[in-house]
Every structure is written in structure tokens, then in C-alpha cells.
């Protein structure tokens, strides 16, 4: 019998029910959604990828619903008072999204009249809800990776979870390649152990390595077929650049393009609602002020949103966006994900997004319906960024999007997971070893590493006599378990991988919370210093009990809070397209408005030096007042250049006695020396030889300091630093030590501790991007190295030198000095 043909007088088939649901909403199922439902019925696992707002959720969610309706065809027996036991786990990467997800998932349930119970369980859920859920889990549970780990520490939940039919990971691209993603993998392995037929599905943005994304999702011992399903493809995106009236031929990254704010404000007039993405929280604060200065009448209709703001403020902003009450919101990646803002019809991107996938993702935040057009306006903060945008558009056109790299077996997380399992019923070594190795991330875990982890959780470390009296996990009758209630509580409180920066709450004297600012910023402030935060101009009154009290202030702010991190390097994929764009320019081809705009800049570059073609690497040496400068342009992203610059300086200084100072940006690096530099070994590629490459880089950089920084997160995940609950912190203060202190203690007294090795490895992989350095070096060695000695700084050299100056000068004198240099060069360029 064909399911799709309605027959009079009969109970509607499951598909007919779904069809009606779509009809009532005025929708029609997309072919990819039907494919998903079919695959799900067949017991498959897989990934659905496409831009946001194209119906991925229903594509996956209706699969389990259809299946259940098929198994329970008679609605007379549906009893909402007896909801079916747990069938689906839905993992969301952001706690704040759980309630919206719950709302979305509940809609078809209500419409179809299913007796399913849909609930969420996150850090925000109340304790009575949580314990009720433990007794009987709802039919579908929405939760986060952390809360899922936590759930697995409760033995009671395991029996129920063995009946789980499927797990769905929302926004898998966000989790993959992060420690939270690995945490999710470990939990999935556990669930698969409880039910080997478990189906795993993920929703993801399009990635460069979807195959790997599926592998990481389903693990190595997956029994079901896996599918990669491409979602709605016809989403139309329009890119447009807001071109500066006057193009600076000598751009620099320091001033963040607020000069463009009048044009941006004009542009905003023409739309209903807009999201304005900037790359850092500091820029968000600045742009908010600038746009308000342009349009004071927008006060109350303009808002800002970033991760440091108080959650109430953020929620208010999100609601304002949903209802369309806000004209525009200035934000960071904090609004990359999540709630559908259907009314947003324009996305403004300030500064280069540094990756094609991110640009695509952000563009998709506007026109958030399958058939609407996404519109993105790009605001360059310097002229060269226009080339980046041209390159990104090309990459999107060619579907050459960034890959998400997987992590290599982080032991800190494995230790945390093993303790969770030890609490939740215990394990034997072989059993859990096999289970862990069934994940993609730990498939190459060795017995030695596993034994170290077991020793670490049982004895504190692998040398027995170094950790007397240590007790966490006990081995009894071959099973690792935790019996000490204090250990259980402490562990449950600290599950997770998110490292809370040492930040302080910012509050008005009246008690109203504004958000969090990093301690390092506040510690530099004096009382009465004025700064902007949360869009408000405030001054510091006092710091007490880790709270910074502020009051509203008038006058000129001296400073904007700076938050750690944030600056993303140019992606490898985008770097390649950037080199291609320059290659075209070298051949005299300038396609698109962006490239046409930067033509004068590239013209000067060509006149004074060359525009490097794709198979060339340009080296410029220039003598300036301060010394001899060597500029090397490989367009590989800032992190790679930091490594290459240190390597070049290190290897050069072995053969010639001089001190180099360095600066890097996404396009290249500069070495400066007080003496002339013998360039021979750069020009013949000797400096980039591949033998002992990574060792030399580690030698040349302050790798100990970098490891120390990396160790912060490791110490937190491995349970050395217990974050605990805020009110608990005071009593446990004598058991707090900084990760630096732990790092030093391990280096001195237990240097073979594998957590130290992990820190070093993470520095190489994440901070230095060693894979990219290796492939960059390979490419450089195959390139023709072209040397030029221009008389003056070229447009490519100028931003690098400004970065160099920045290290030594205060910001105001820097701005003046740069402006002067800019004028001189403009004059010379004619």
C-alpha cells in the first residue's frame, strides 16, 4: 500500500499526518527532509548540512516521530499521562538555546497530538526537575554536552538510557574539533555501549571535511549505515561591500574603520533589522557608540550583544530581535548561533571574517527562511581586507570551505570522563579502554597512555611514591569506582571543559549587574577611570569581593575593556584564495567591485615592488631610520607567520650575530635588525629547510610560556583546579592554586606527567598550527622567491611596520605617527 495515498475512513498514515502538519504551517516538505525521514526509518545515522534556517531541524526531528507513530498507529491508545520512555537525546551546544530548541521541538508534538514529553536539562534546570527526570526521563531530552556527562554519573539513568533510540547533535560544526566535541564523542560511545543500535544524527553547517565530521560523529564501531545529506541548496546570498569614499593606499589595522560609520548608518536606514558583526568585544562596544553618535534618535532601538554581558541583557536583546523591536544589534560571534531572527534582513560584517565558512554562516543570519535572500554588507577596516572579501566570495562560490580539525586524544578530558564513569557505576580497565578507543578522537590511544590515565585518577600520577595519601578513584575487584561522596560532589560540580577566565562581575552601586570583565583589564584601572562597557559609559568606584562597582560617568572614556583571545588568524583556505586574487591582480585582472577598489593600492605595490603571483613568494628589504627591515609575504595567517618569523630569526641568527625584532600579520612577517642582514639563506630557501623544523620553532619561541598558558584549560579539565560554585569558593580557597603553580610543580617534581606533554602538543597543534606551518614551508620551498629592494615602504609592508611600532608606543602617539608616515608615503606615491 502506498502510504501517500489517503484512503477514506482509514486512520491517516504517519506520513499523511506529517503532510498535514506542514500544510497547516503553509509549508511543503523539501526532498532532503523526506530523504532524512526515510534514512532514519531504515535505521541509519548521518549528518544534515546546509546554511541556517533551511529546515534541518524538522528533517531530523520528524524521523523519530514518524517511527514512533508507525509503531503506535492507534491514536486512541496515545495517553499523554503515560508518555513513552526516553527515545531521543537532543544535544545543543549552548545552554541558552535549550529553551528555544524545546519550543521548536514541541511544536510538531503538540500539533500532531503525540503523548511525548519534551523537556530540557541544563545547568539552569532546577534541582527538583533534575531529580524527577532521573527517576523517569522524558521521551525527548534536550541537553548540553556537560549535562549529558553529568547524567552519565548517575547510575539510575543508565538503564533508562539503554532504551535510547537516537541522539541528535545540533550545530555539530561548533562542537567538532573542540574539547566539548570530544566530550560529546565520549558520551556517545557510552550510550552506544548501552544500546549498540543507537542512531546518531547531526545538524551542521557545511564544512570542508564532512567525511571526518561523520566519522567523529558515529565513531569507529558504528553498526548503522551513515549518510551525508545536503540540505536546501538554493539559498541565495548577496554580498556587497561598503566601499570607503577614499581608499588609503597605505592601510593599517590599528584604527578599526569607524570612519565608515556614517556610511554604515546610511545603509542601515534602508533596512528593517540588521545584525552588525564585529570580530572582538571591544570593537562591539566602539561601534555601538559610533553608530549611536551618527543616529542619536536610534537610542533604545540599537543594542549590543557579546559574551561578557549579563545574561538578562543578552536575553532582552535576543527577544528584541525576535520581535523586530530593535533596529540593529552590534554583536560578536555570540550571535553566530542559535535563535532564528526571522526579521533580520541585513547582516553587516565589520572587518574580515578571516574564513569563508564564517562569512557564509553569518550571511545566513539574515533572510532566515529557506526562500528568502541573505544579504551581507562588508565594512573593510583597511583596504587590503577588500581583497580578503573578494577571496572569501570566490571560496564560497567554489564551495571551498574551511575544515574543522579534530583534536588528538586529549588526556585531561579522558581522565575527567573516566572519573565520571567510575562514579556512574564503575568500569573495568579493558571494558572502558575498548569503549574509549571506539571514538574517532581516541582511536589511536595506546595502552601506555590509558594506564597513565588510570594511574592519574587512582594514585594522582604514575610514580606511586610521589603522590602518597591521594585518593580519588579506587580499584576494587577489578572495577574502578568512586565511593567517597565528597569526591563525587566535587567532580560533578566541575564536569566540563569551559575555562572561566578570571573575570569580575561589573555592577552598579545600586546592585544592577552589567556583565563580566576580565580581571587583567580591571586590575590596570585606577579609581574614577572612565570606560565603556555594555554600551554604557561608566567609571570605576571600587573593587570589593571580586566585584567591580561602577557608576555612570560623563566625559571622555580613557579606555575600552580588552578581552583575551578573539583574534582569529586567516584560514588556510582563505589564504589560498587570497593568493589567487593577488595572482589575478599580478596579471592585470581586477574582477568585482572589491578588487577594482584596491586597484590603486596594488598599482603602487606593483610600481615600487611587485604583486606576487601564486607561485612566487615576495621578499622586500628596506632600510629605514630604525634599521634594516626584511618583509616576507606568504599570506598564511598570523599564527603561521609567528612561527615562521621566529624560525627565520632563529636560524639567521645562528650564522650572523645580530638581534632581530619581529612582527606578524595575516599577510606576512617582518624581521628588523640594527645591522644589514645577509639574505642569502632566505632567498635560497635554506631558512625554510624542513629538517628539525618544529624543534627549531619550539626552540625559537617562548614555548614554555605558551605551554603554561595552554595548561590552564588542562588543569581545569583534569580536575586540578576546581571551579566549584561561586559561594563555595571562599571556603575552599586554601585548595586553590593557579595553573601556573601546578605547571611549575609538575615540571619540577613530576616532569614525566603526561598532562605536561599534552600542553606542549596543544601548543604545537593549536597555537602554532604546526600542520599549517609544515604545509606552508612545503609550498614556500616550491615557490620562486622574488627579492625586491623598494626605496620606501610598500602598501603591503606598511601595516606590518605599524604593528611593529605598536609594541613600543602608546596608542595616541602611535596614531599620530602613523598618520604622518601615511601622508609621506601618499605624497611619494603621487
Amino acid at each position: 500500500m502506498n502510504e501517500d495515498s489517503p484512503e477514506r475512513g482509514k486512520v491517516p498514515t504517519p506520513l499523511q499526518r506529517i503532510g498535514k502538519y506542514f500544510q497547516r504551517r503553509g509549508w511543503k516538505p523539501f526532498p532532503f527532509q523526506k530523504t532524512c525521514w526515510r534514512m532514519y526509518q531504515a535505521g541509519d545515522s548521518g549528518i544534515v548540512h546546509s546554511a541556517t534556517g533551511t529546515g534541518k531541524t524538522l528533517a531530523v526531528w520528524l524521523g523519530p516521530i514518524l517511527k514512533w507513530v508507525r509503531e503506535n498507529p492507534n491514536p486512541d491508545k496515545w495517553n499523554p499521562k503515560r508518555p513513552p520512555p526516553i527515545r531521543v537525546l537532543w544535544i545543543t551546544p549552548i545552554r541558552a538555546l535549550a529553551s528555544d530548541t524545546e519550543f521548536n521541538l514541541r511544536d510538531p508534538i503538540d500539533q500532531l497530538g503525540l503523548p511525548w514529553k519534551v523537556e530540557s536539562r541544563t545547568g539552569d534546570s532546577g534541582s527538583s526537575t533534575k531529580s524527577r527526570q532521573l527517576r523517569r526521563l522524558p521521551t525527548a531530552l534536550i541537553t548540553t554536552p556537560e549535562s549529558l556527562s553529568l547524567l552519565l554519573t548517575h547510575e539510575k539513568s543508565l538503564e533508562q538510557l539503554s532504551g535510547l533510540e537516537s541522539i541528535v547533535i545540533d550545530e555539530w560544526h561548533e562542537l567538532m574539533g573542540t574539547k566539548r566535541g570530544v566530550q560529546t564523542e565520549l558520551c556517545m560511545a557510552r550510550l552506544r555501549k548501552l544500546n549498540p543500535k543507537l542512531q546518531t544524527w547531526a545538524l551542521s553547517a557545511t564544512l570542508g571535511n564532512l567525511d571526518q565530521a561523520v566519522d567523529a560523529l558515529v565513531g569507529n564501531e558504528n553498526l548503522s549505515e551513515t549518510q551525508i545529506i545536503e540540505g536546501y541548496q538554493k539559498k541565495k546570498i548577496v554580498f556587497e561591500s561598503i566601499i570607503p569614499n577614499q581608499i588609503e593606499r597605505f592601510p593599517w589595522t590599528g584604527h578599526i574603520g569607524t570612519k565608515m560609520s556614517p556610511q554604515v548608518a546610511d545603509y542601515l536606514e534602508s533596512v528593517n533589522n540588521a545584525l552588525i558583526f564585529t570580530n572582538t568585544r571591544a570593537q562591539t562596544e566602539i561601534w555601538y557608540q559610533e553608530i549611536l553618535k551618527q543616529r542619536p534618535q536610534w537610542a533604545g532601538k540599537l543594542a549590543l550583544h557579546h559574551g561578557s554581558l549579563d545574561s538578562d541583557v543578552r536575553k532582552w536583546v535576543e527577544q528584541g530581535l525576535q520581535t523586530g523591536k530593535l533596529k540593529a544589534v552590534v554583536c560578536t560571534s555570540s550571535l553566530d548561533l542559535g535563535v532564528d531572527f526571522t526579521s533580520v534582513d541585513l547582516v553587516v560584517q565589520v572587518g574580515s571574517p578571516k574564513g569563508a565558512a564564517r562569512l557564509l554562516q553569518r550571511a545566513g543570519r539574515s533572510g532566515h527562511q529557506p526562500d528568502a535572500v541573505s544579504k551581507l554588507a562588508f565594512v573593510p577596516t583597511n583596504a587590503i581586507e577588500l581583497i580578503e572579501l573578494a577571496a572569501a566570495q570566490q571560496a564560497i562560490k567554489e564551495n571551498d570551505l574551511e575544515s574543522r580539525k579534530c583534536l588528538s586524544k586529549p588526556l585531561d578530558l579522558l581522565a575527567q570522563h573516566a572519573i565520571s564513569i567510575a562514579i556512574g557505576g564503575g568500569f573495568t580497565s579493558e571494558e572502558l579502554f575498548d569503549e574509549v578507543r571506539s571514538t574517532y578522537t581516541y582511536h589511536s590511544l595506546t595502552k601506555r597512555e590509558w594506564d597513565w590515565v588510570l594511574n592519574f585518577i587512582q594514585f594522582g600520577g604514575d610514580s606511586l611514591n610521589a603522590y602518597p595519601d591521594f585518593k580519588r578513584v579506587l580499584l576494587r575487584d577489578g572495577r574502578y569506582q568512586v565511593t567517597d561522596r565528597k569526591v563525587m560532589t566535587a567532580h560533578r560540580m566541575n564536569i566540563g571543559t569551559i575555562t572561566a577566565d578570571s573575570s569580575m562581575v561589573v555592577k552598579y552601586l545600586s546592585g544592577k549587574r552589567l556583565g563580566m570583565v576580565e580581571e587583567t583589564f580591571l586590575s590596570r584601572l585606577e579609581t574614577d577611570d572612565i570606560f565603556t562597557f555594555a554600551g554604557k559609559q561608566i567609571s570605576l568606584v571600587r573593587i570589593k569581593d571580586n566585584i567591580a562597582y561602577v557608576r555612570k560617568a560623563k566625559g571622555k572614556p580613557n579606555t575600552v575593556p580588552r578581552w583575551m583571545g578573539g583574534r582569529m588568524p586567516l584560514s588556510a583556505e582563505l589564504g589560498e584564495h587570497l593568493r589567487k586574487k593577488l595572482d589575478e591582480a599580478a596579471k592585470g585582472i581586477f574582477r568585482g567591485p572589491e578588487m577594482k577598489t584596491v586597484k590603486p593600492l596594488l598599482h603602487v605595490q606593483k610600481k615600487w615592488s611587485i604583486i606576487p603571483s601564486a607561485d612566487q613568494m615576495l621578499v622586500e628589504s628596506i632600510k629605514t631610520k630604525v634599521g634594516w627591515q626584511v618583509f616576507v609575504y606568504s599570506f598564511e595567517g598570523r599564527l603561521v607567520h609567528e612561527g615562521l618569523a621566529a624560525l627565520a630569526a632563529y636560524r639567521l641568527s645562528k650564522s650572523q650575530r645580530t638581534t632581530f625584532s619581529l612582527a606578524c600579520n595575516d599577510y606576512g612577517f617582518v624581521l628588523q635588525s640594527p645591522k644589514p642582514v645577509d639574505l642569502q639563506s632566505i632567498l635560497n630557501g635554506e631558512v625554510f629547510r624542513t629538517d628539525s623544523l618544529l624543534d627549531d620553532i619550539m626552540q625559537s619561541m617562548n614555548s614554555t610560556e605558551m605551554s603554561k598558558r595552554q595548561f590552564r584549560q588542562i588543569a581545569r579539565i583534569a580536575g586540578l583546579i576546581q571551579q566549584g560554585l561561586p559561594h563555595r569558593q571562599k571556603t575552599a580557597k586554601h585548595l586553590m592554586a593557579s595553573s601556573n603553580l601546578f605547571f611549575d610543580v609538575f615540571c619540577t617534581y613530576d616532569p614525566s606527567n603526561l598532562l605536561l606533554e599534552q600542553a606542549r602538543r596543544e601548543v604545537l597543534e593549536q597555537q602554532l598550527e604546526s600542520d599549517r606551518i609544515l604545509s606552508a614551508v612545503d609550498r614556500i620551498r616550491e615557490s620562486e622567491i622574488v627579492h625586491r629592494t623598494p626605496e620606501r615602504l610598500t602598501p603591503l609592508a606598511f601595516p606590518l611596520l605599524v604593528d611593529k611600532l605598536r609594541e613600543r608606543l602608546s596608542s595616541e602617539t602611535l596614531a599620530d605617527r602613523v598618520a604622518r608616515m601615511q601622508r609621506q608615503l601618499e605624497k611619494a606615491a603621487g
Partner: protein
Amino acid sequence: MTSVCIGVTIADRDFTLCSPGGIYDPSTETLFIADTHFGKDASFRHHAIPVPTGSTEATLRKIEKMLCRLPAKRLVILGDMFHDRNSLSKETLKHLDEFFETHQRIDHFLVPGNHDSDIRLIPKHWSLQIIQSGTYLDGLTLSHFPVTSDHMERIVLCGHLHPAIRIGTGNDQLKLPCFLYRDQNLILPALGDFTGTEVIRTRSGDRVWVIADEEVVTIKTEF
């Protein structure tokens, strides 16, 4: 590790500052140290936080280095000798037994600090004398906490703060433990090998000496 000392004059009185973090007063032939936090590693292990052993022993070696160089007849610990009640593990006791055994000729004193709440647990055979905070010794006031008062005639020797200062700018920064003289208080750095530091902001009138590896270096502060 060689300990290097420098002589300084504070309020017309000569002191010797030693690089591991002790102060020697030649007129009373006394070595002052503070915040040793012996057995902090054991306390952490007791609470299931894996910290390897070794730091207690290393802290004792620092004291012995100074005792070797200096003709001290007295050793005064200015508080926070132990970390907490769980610090006195078998391991910790063993090393301290050895220390007191070896250095019997010297008189040992402890000004209890906020961490030394359970001084009753201290073994009698260590011949460690407890003296109250505020005790005078030849023109010096001994205390764990810095003392603030308008009419101070004596220099206060104290600890508690674990002072350190940050020097350098931008990416090129160092955080170094230091001796700090401020408002008549001469504050010692924490001697314990497994102790953190608190970065202080220098004020005008402060005198600061940092410990840079094995040397004590005078830091110029603005006046």
C-alpha cells in the same frame, strides 16, 4: 642553587636580604622567613587533587642554604608555617623531623599565621617555640600580618601577603616575588615552594627588592 644576599639599610638599621626569600638581622643574629606552607602538597592530595611531593623538601633546602651561609642563632617563621590541618602528613613530618634534628643548635620560633590554626598538632620534640604576634625583638615588631598604625616606632617584620611585582611591558613581562617595605612594614616574600604570589601595585614611598633567580635586585620605584 647559590643564595646571594644583599645588605640594605632600612630606618637606620642594617638587614641582609637573601635570594630564596629570608631576611637576616645581624644585630640579633636572627634569620626571618615567612609563609613556608609546609605540607601544602599533602593537603591538596588529601582533597583528591594530585600534587606531587617534593615542594616541602625543597622549601627546607632553601632554609638550610641560608643557615649555611649566615651565622644565625635564631630562626623565626613569621606565620603560615603549615598550610592546613592535613599538611602534617607522614611525609611532611618525616622531612621536618630531619630538619629540626639537624638544626638543634638554633632556637626556632613561630609567630602563628592564619593558616596555623592547629598549632596543637605540632610535635613537641621539634623544640619550636610559639610567640605571639606583636612580640618585640630588639627594636623590631614580629607579626604575621602587616600592621597599620599611625604611631609606629618600630619596624614590623611580617609576611602574609606573598608579595610580587610585575616588571616589563607588553609581551615582555615578568612576575617576580619581592621584599616590600611600606609604611614601616618590611614584608617578606613567601618562602614555600608551592605557594602563589599576589601582585602588588607599588605606591610612592615603597621600597622593593625582587628575587630574580638567585639574586636580590633593588627596584627603583617612583617617589
